[in-house]
Structures are given as C-alpha cells and as structure tokens.
C-alpha cells in the first residue's frame, strides 16, 4: 500500500554498507583455521551484497563455538540457551516479521539438545536462514562426541570410540513435513558457501544449510580426504541451484545435474557417504510460511484486545436492571 512517494523517499536513504559495517568491535576468538571464520565471512559478504540494514538484522544462536557468531556481527544478536536458538528466532520473527533473521547453531545445539525444536522449526517454515555449523564434535567444551560424530571417534565421552553411526541432518530435515529449502556447503569452498547462503537467504521460508566445517583443534584431519581430493566432492549443479565458475569447475569436476525440486533424488543424494554432496538439495517456494498463515485481518492492537475481551465478558455478564438477562442495558 506504500505510495510511490514513500518508496522513492525510502530508497533515497538506502545505506551504502561495506563489509566493515557488519564487523563488530569484538575480534573473532575462534581457533586459527576454524571453519567458523569462513562462515562468518560469507555471512558478512551476504549482508553487504544485500545491503541489509544492521538494525534490521538479527543473529540468534544457542551454545557452542558456532554460537559465538552473533558477537562478531555488527547487528542485533541473541546468544541464547543451549538448543533454543530456533524457538527464540521464531519468536523474533513472529513479533517482528520485518527483521532479517539468521540462526547459527551447531551439531550439538541443533541435533542433540535442540532436536525437537529443529523438527518443528522446519515444519513451521518461518522465513529465516538456519546455518548448521557441523564440525562433528562438541568443540567449545573440549571434545565430546556429538550426534554427527563419526562412528569410532574417540572423545572425552567416548574413550573407546563412538558406538553409533552418526545422524544425518540432511536426511532428517528432508523427512520433515513442510520442508522448503535444504542445502549443504563446506567451509573450504568459500565461493560455493557464499552462493548457497545467498540462495538460502533469498528463499522465503525456513532455509536449512548444513555447513561441514573443520575443527583444527579437535577434528584436525577429519575432512582431509575430501579437501585434498576434489573428486570426492559431488557438486549439485543446476540452473535453479548453484553453478560453478569456470575456475572452480576445473577443480571440482565431479558434478551432477540435480533439480532442487526433486525431493526423492534429494533424499538419495543426502544419503551419500563416500562423497560429500554440495549444493541446493531441495527447494520448494510454494510451502507457506507460518507467520503468513497466522497473519490476521487486522493487527492485535490494544484497542482490539480490549474490545474483544469486553465482548466476551459481556456474554456472561448479568445486568441487574435487565432482571438477569445477558444483554447490556440500552
């Protein structure tokens, strides 16, 4: 309903933000070589390229190395409780649908303690971008096995090696009703990481991006086979997904044309173990967002709340002059 005049005047003052406008005064304290740095850079580039006003951008996190990210962004942030990043983000989005909401969570925060919230956040499909920093270990607390840790990993809580096969966040997410966007990236191909995060941001709905990231401290060589042998990376290329630039194409030749609208194939690709699929696995723009479904015909102003409450109370009020009837006096 905004008039053209309003649009013109608003655009006159569109900010010209640079990368440094999104860098907080706090320097990142992640370990040198940590994949979180790559994700932080990609997110800051996204904010700059999309010219997101810092005061309209919110980063919500739980607990873990990943969840330090809001501290390093010059935007609004909420560093919350372990596993509760998603419900807080949903609350922010419901109350302030105009804000750009990002969730940074880790494999423990999302897939362990936060698993229940994770499933329903996918189902609610509220418009936000969820970045799962998956380093397959609890790093902040100095090495415990997480739900995505590989079987056999020796850690402080699994000294004889993890007994269980890891949970696959991609297949779990693709199995939830109303899923609308699932992608996977790796921190050591920053261009693709940036491309995927950009597409995730632009998708209207809950965009779930799993980023496999290296932990140089506790999982030092975990991803070496894939880092050193590009043929083990399967790039999912499509006009509707990602398309590699020529220089990257020369390196990552193992590419598959994958249509993001094909859910069944997405599930198959997500199940790959020997190769790491990278790209947009699934996208469905037709899934409605919960906040749109919830949007009422009018805002819940204090006046409306008062009016509605009074109407309800009037139904049960006995008006003495009426001799016991339920109608208010004329």
């Amino acid at each position, binding site marked *: *309903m905004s008039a053209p005049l309003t649009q013109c*005047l*608003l655009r006159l*003052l569109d900010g010209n933000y640079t990368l440094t406008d999104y860098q907080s005064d706090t320097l990142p304290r992640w370990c040198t070589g940590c994949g979180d*740095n790559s994700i932080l850079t990609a997110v800051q580039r996204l904010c700059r390229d999309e010219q997101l006003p810092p005061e309209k951008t919110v980063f919500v996190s739980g607990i873990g190395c990943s969840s330090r990210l809001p501290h390093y962004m010059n935007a609004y942030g909420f560093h919350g409780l372990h596993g509760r990043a998603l419900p807080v983000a949903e609350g922010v989005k419901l109350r302030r649908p105009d804000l750009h909401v990002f969730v940074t969570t880790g494999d423990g925060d999302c897939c362990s303690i936060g698993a229940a919230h994770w499933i329903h956040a996918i189902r609610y499909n509220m418009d936000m971008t969820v970045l799962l920093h998956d380093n397959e270990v609890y790093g902040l607390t100095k090495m415990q096995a997480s739900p995505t840790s590989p079987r056999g990993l020796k850690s402080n809580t699994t000294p004889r090696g993890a007994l269980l096969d890891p949970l696959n966040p991609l297949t779990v997410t693709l199995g939830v009703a109303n899923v609308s966007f699932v992608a996977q990236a790796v*921190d050591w191909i920053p261009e693709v990481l940036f491309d995927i995060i950009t597409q995730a941001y632009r998708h209207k709905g809950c965009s779930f991006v799993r980023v496999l990231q290296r932990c140089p401290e506790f999982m030092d060589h975990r991803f070496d086979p894939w*880092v050193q042998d590009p043929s083990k990376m399967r790039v999912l*290329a499509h006009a509707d997904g990602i398309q590699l630039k020529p220089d*990257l194409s020369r390196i990552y030749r193992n590419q598959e044309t994958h249509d993001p609208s094909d859910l069944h194939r997405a599930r198959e690709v997500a199940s790959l173990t020997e190769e790491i699929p990278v790209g947009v696995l699934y996208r469905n723009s037709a899934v409605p967002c919960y906040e749109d479904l919830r949007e009422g015909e*009018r805002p819940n102003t204090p006046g409306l709340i008062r009016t509605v409450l009074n109407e309800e109370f009037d139904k049960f009020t006995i008006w003495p002059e009426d001799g016991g009837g339920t109608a208010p006096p004329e």
Partner: protein
Amino acid sequence: MTATHPETAHAGDNARQGGEVRNGDMDQVALDIASPRMTDADAGPAVGPALRPALFARYGDLSKLRYDFPLVLVDGDGGGRFLQSLTSVVDGILREVAPPGAAAESLRRQVLRLESEIRAQVSRGESDSLSLLWKRTAADLITEKGESVFGPLATKLDHAREALHVDGAVIDCDEDTPYRVLVHIWTAVQASKAKAFRKKVDALVMKLSDILKADFMKSDKAHTQEALQSAVGTSFESAFDFAAMSRVLSRGPSEDRLSEDRRRRIRAVLQVLQSQRFYGPGRASERRPDQPEPYSFVFDSCAAALDAFRDRLPEMLDFVKVLTIAELEIQNKYRTALHDPVFAHFDESDLSEDQLALFPSYLVCLRDGRTDPAETLRAFETLASGLPVKVLVQTDDILGTTSPEPPRSSFGAGSARLAAMAVGLNDTYVFQTANANLYRAHDRLVTGMRYEGPALFTVYSGATPSAAGVPPYLLSAAATESRAFPTFVYDPAVGPDLATRFDITDNPQATVDWPVHDLFYEDEALQRIDEKVPFTHVDFVACDARYARYCEPAPRANWRDDMIPAADYLKLAPERSLEHSAYILTVDAGNALSRTVVDDKLMNAARHCADAWRRLQELGGVNNSYANRLLARERVAWEEQKAQELAELHTAEPPAPEAAPPAEAVAPPIPAAAVEPAEAEEPEPANPDEAWIETARCTTCDECTQINNRMFAYNENKQAFIADLGAGTYSQMVEAAESCQVSIIHPGKPRDPSEPNLEDLIARAGPFI
C-alpha cells in the same frame, strides 16, 4: 385464438407450480392492465386502454412465480456475494437439507411454501430482514395449520432454517430497488477497503506508539518508583524494591533518546492517523471519546459531492503525507533537512491514483424526476474529472412524453444516451441495465464499484407511472428485450481496446435486432399452435398507456392480407411499407389473442431504436460494419483469385495430380544436452617461480595473516591475497603454505638467496608449487 392461460400452460412450464422465470423469457409473462382509454390530451399516467403484448400472457401474478426477486441484501462479506435472490437462498437450503428424493419431499414442499409466502409478503410491501421474515412467516404457517410450536411443521422449518447462512434486508423489484442495491454494494465494497485501510493505519499507529513507548522507558519519568511499580503490576510487586530499582536505573548511563523534534513529529503523525474521518473506527482501533464522526460519502447531487471532495482535499493531502512520514519514521529514515521541504511543497498535483484509491469513493445518486436536469451535465463533467466518483442515474421513464419520436430533451430519455456518451470519456466505467437484471449483474456492479476511477451506472427502474399496471420487474425486463434500454458494459480496466472493454452479451439474443420467443396458443379448434414471435420496441411502447391512442386492436373480421408483424414491417423498403400495415400480437384481460395495428409514428420510433441498437452492436463487435466491409473485400479478392486460377487451369495442360502437401517436417527432439562442467579457457599458467594465492578459495581462517599480516592481507571479501611480498621471509611464506587449510598458497622460488635454510625451505615448498 386464446393465448395459453397459466392454468392451462404447456407441460413442463407451469408457472403456478413455481416454474422459474428467467429475465427476458417473455413467453411466461402474463399481464393485467386495466386502465381507461386515453384521450387525445397528453396526460400523465395511465390514460389508455389496457394492452398487453402477447408474450406477457403467461406472467400473471409474479408473486406466485419463482424468479430473481425478491433480493436479499446480504449482510457482511457474504463470501464476496453481496446480493442473493430468495430463490437461490432457498435452493441452497434445499440442497443442504432436502436433497431430491421421496424422503425429503414433504420438507421441500413446506420450504417452497414458506418461500412463496415470503415473496407474497414482500410484494405487498412488507420489508424486513430475511431471518425475521422467515421467523414470522413460519409462525404464521404453523398457526394456520393449527399445529403447536413443537409440531412436525415447526420442526421441519427449524431444520431448514439451520441451513440459512445468509441474512439481510429483503427487497422487491420496485422504484427504490436500484438505489438500495447500488448503495448496498457500494457500502460493502467500501467496507472491505476500510478493512485494508484500518489494518495498515493500525499497524502504523502501533509501531509509532512502540517507538514513543520505548523512548519513554528510557526517560527519568519511567524510572520513578511509581512508574516502575505500575509497569510490573500488582501480582509480583512484593518481590521488588521499587525504590532501590529506581535509584539503580537513574544512576545508569543515559541512553540515546529521541530528539524533541522527532518526538513532536511522531505525536503529530499519530494525532492525524487516529483522528482521520475517512473511515470509521474498526474493532482494532482505539476509540477516543472526542473522535469526530466519519464523513459521509453518499450524495444526491454531483455538486454536493464535488464540494465535499474539495473541502476534504486538504485533509486527504495531510493524511497521505502523514502515511509517508510514518513509514519513514518507523524505518528511522526521516531526515529533517531532506524531507521537510518535500512535504512542505506537497500538494494535490502530487496525489497519485494509488493514493486517491486509499480513500472511499463518492457515490452520487441521481433520479429522474427528482433531480435537477442540469445534474445530467454535471454528472458528465464529474465523470470526466477522473475523480473516484460513482454516479447512479436512475430513470423511471424511458419514453418520455407522447411524442413518439425519440425524445430529445427529457431527462429520462437523455439518460439512455448518457451512458453511451460516457463511453467516449474512455476512462470511465459505464454500466447500463434494467432493474430486472440487477441480480444477474452483480459482478458487473461490484467491478464498477471496485474500479479505481469514475463509474457510471444507469438503471431503468420500470416504475413508469403511465404503465402502472405492469410490475416494474416486467416492464424493465421488457425495456431490455425491446432494445429500448439495452444492457451494456464498458470496463476500461480489462484491456486496451474496445473489443475487450465493451460487452453487450448480457442482452438476450444479442446478435439479432429483436429477440424471438416461442408463443403457444390454442386456435378456435383448441389446437395448439406454436409461433415464433419477436419482442420489438413497439411491444414495449404499447405497455405505456400514453401511447395507447397509437394502437388499435383489430377484430378478426377486419384482418387483411396486407397486415404484417411489426418486425417484418421494419425490414421492408420504404416504398413497400406503404402497401402494408404493421401489427403486434396482444392479449386482452381474458387472454384472448388479437392483432393490434400500430401507427406509423410508433414504427418510426422502432426504427430509430433498432438503429441505435445496431450501433451498439457494432461497438460490441456484432455485425461490425468495418469488419463486414473488410470481409467482403477479402471475399471478392479471394473469389477473383480463385476464378483466375480456375481459368489458368482450364487453358493449361491437364495438371498432374496434385501432390499431397509435404508433411510438415517434424524436427527431431533436441536431445537434452548433458551438463558438462563449465570449461573455461585455460588461464595462462602462473609463473611457478612467483608466489601467488588462489584468493577466491580462501576460507578466511587467519592462518596466514597470523604468520605475517603485512605480507598477507584480506581483500574487500575478507579473502587473503599477497599484499607485500617483501614484508616477510620465504620461511614465512612456506610456513603459511603449510598452514593453509585449503592449500591455496603457492610459495614460488625464494627471492633472497641469502636467506638461511633455503634448501630445506625449497624442499618443503615443493608440494605447493
């Protein structure tokens, strides 16, 4: 000959049983006019003998028929349907509670009886809401049957009533119907506009109030003990020491507060938003005791509407400005130096159509005989102004005085041409129709009311005093049938050309001059005769007692061979028409069929009417003369070409059998190209002796910058590049290459041959070169 009486109607079409009458289905119409024969004086109403066109024969008491009336003016949204006919409402109820079958037959009959009684009441002038009419009529039927209120009839009717999902005023087809229907639809359309308006305004008010509230919470006033206590409420007040809280908060650093200028501006904006008078407050709006009444937008003259628009224009401008300021403030993008001058010079020339569309449209209701005739001109000017004005011009008399030639000066006939003239304005929505058609024209009416520009609705009510014996429904339908007042719509919003904008298909049999209907009657030998009878302009005029003196019923003994039906007479060339006399078929009070000879003046009027109708048809793409001429030219050219080809064939050798035209080559499907990885031309191989970094693959891990942040630096994308090779040693370069998580640093050859441990360093650098 006797026209078929309703009681002896042909099978399958029994009006007494409630057979449905469609608008324009004149075969089912019977009419009873009883009025004295007109004298030579041009008197007012009803001065001639009763004449009924034969096609009216089957329409006796309309209240006994099931047709489009009465109408229910639906309360509320109605699912987008603002009008329902009683018939359709009852049909809906029966579909839900009494599907076809023997079991529900009794219920069906009772409900139909109830409907018939409601219809009769409404036709007698009793007006009320449908629910109350239902309740009252049901009670009457129960009393009449002598049953108790808990008896079987009451139970059945209650059961049916549960399926009644609409309510609203019930109105018949009379002189007030056009006004009531259009005001109702206008009101409903404005209500949905109001909802959207209030949603936007209430959201802005809420956000601006939040800004002021947040600012207040930072103020000293909000940190007083009393303010903190009232903010917490009574439930947990014993858990807090508000005095201590107040001291602590007051000692804290002062936070950024709004400037006084900004606070004042927001308050002024709120004041305007909350006190606007264009729409009334909704359920969500805060109600203030001093809130003024909302404006009315329904007028009975164009002058009053234009005056009101001009008076309210400053307020509209203020409101539009305030909407923009509100959005800027909410985004924190209002800049005094930049925006104050913009809004200071904002005037009506800056108002766009979108902004005008925010406000309610103005409804002007004009009526033949009750409005100053000069209003017709003003209506035209108002429509030409482009303002969002909806003008209803109701006419009760199309024919005017007894000058049978098309009246040139009377308001009533003028309005029939007003709509055609308004089409020339190009951007005005124009809809002309008769009262009888209003129910079926629901979508057209709603579209016109929703149209953002000016709209004109001309409606013939059928309540012509000089045809008092003909129900308005019947007379108005006859006006449409006879092309005296045809239905058409011009909608500028649907397309760029006349073919898409102009539509006459709502008229019966729109491709012919006069609609033709079946007439069944019995001859003297009581044999059924079927005849196709056109309904012409003459049939319509004959209903008006003022023109009765131009009609002479001819007894059977006086019938001659030169008497031909009026429709056929109109097709004759002028010189041949002198040899004939025209007649129409009429029935008398006993439904006896006869021929009524009509005066040449009526035939002239019919010719004019037919001519006007054909012009309208052309606009609607029917028998378009340009298209016909083009077609004729093309046909002639095609025929000549074919003739020439034939001639050539005859003079030439016997031709070979014509080869079948080659089958259209079907291109083989293009195989889906396999997607190959994008191959770019190989870049020039980097000089292996020089150090370089694959910057695009840098993961910003800080490994190299931590080793030497002068040698390695980040670019604008926070990806590393070699900033200054001389700022560090070859040893640091090799160490960075080894530390790099993605092995994108290529150390090259050492630049300084005197650097210690070069052999070892070169060996270590080997894998990265």
